């Protein structure tokens, strides 16, 4: 199972259509994909289920459609997550990429609209970017199929374990790191480790993201107060 996430209007649904051959409606307005859409494709005799998620600036959601994206990455734990980024405004897109990398190590950064970026005089140093982030980076132009084979190959290599990612881990200051450790030890007996990334959850608890705790509670059918 492969998830597609990205900022609004970066071409997630176009990538989705190109990969699956489907005609999922694409449109240039926000909130177009309010629910997730699913599709399939085959590559090297393997079946892939692809899930297109609503556009999102952050995994700390402020609207129901962003919650869909957060819940999926957080609870459904896809085998690989493709972060679709607009190559022309990479800086703002990397925020989400880093957040996704904090939850899951198996991430591919898909630099879409690379032709538009070129037209604007922006060239991206793919190799350095990939090295800095610790995840594969694939430039694409979804509309004319450019880079799509590469994307499929990269996904396959990740899923089959032929390619190892070591996403750059963001270190916080000592106080936060101490808190994270402390909270992690409290989470341990309550929630199975296979279910959620503890470090990420601990950071959200420090953020005071009460909605996330609500989501976890309903997801796990936990009774009463969990944590803190």
């Amino acid at each position, binding site marked *: 199972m492969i998830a597609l996430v990205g900022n609004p209007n970066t071409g997630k649904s176009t990538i989705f259509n190109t990969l699956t051959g489907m005609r999922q409606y694409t449109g240039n307005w926000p909130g177009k994909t309010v629910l997730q859409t699913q599709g399939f494709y085959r590559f090297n005799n393997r079946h892939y289920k692809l899930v297109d998620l609503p556009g999102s600036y952050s995994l700390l959601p402020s609207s129901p459609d962003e919650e869909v994206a957060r819940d999926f990455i957080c609870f459904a734990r896809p085998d690989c997550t493709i972060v679709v980024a607009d190559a022309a405004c990479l800086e703002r897109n990397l925020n989400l990429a880093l957040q996704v990398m904090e939850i899951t190590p198996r991430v591919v950064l898909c630099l879409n609209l690379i032709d538009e970026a070129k037209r604007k005089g922006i060239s991206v140093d793919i190799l350095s970017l990939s090295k800095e982030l610790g995840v594969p980076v694939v430039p694409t132009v979804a509309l004319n199929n450019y880079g799509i084979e590469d994307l499929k190959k990269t996904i396959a290599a990740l899923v089959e374990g032929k390619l190892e990612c070591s996403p750059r881990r963001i270190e916080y200051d000592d106080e936060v790191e101490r808190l994270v450790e402390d909270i992690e030890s409290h989470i341990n007996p309550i929630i199975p480790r296979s279910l959620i990334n503890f470090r990420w959850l601990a950071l959200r608890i420090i953020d005071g*993201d009460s909605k996330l705790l609500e989501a976890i509670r309903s997801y796990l059918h936990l009774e009463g107060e969990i944590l803190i």
Partner: protein
Amino acid sequence: MKLTELAVGKSGVITSVAGGGMQRRRLLDLGFIPGSRVENVRCSPTGNPTAYLIKGTLIALRREESDMLFVKML
């Protein structure tokens, strides 16, 4: 000065983001980060909301949100 006071067509650099919790986090996630350049592109008839160009994307903010952002005029 507050981002709210930035006139249409003018640009500034964000100096600080006030407030706390998820509201502040949200503004940061949208790209309103200290040191970033921001331009007031247009505003609705009442001035609320107003559209700002930030890191290559237009984002509309309500006055309560732009009041939390402080800028230096360019």
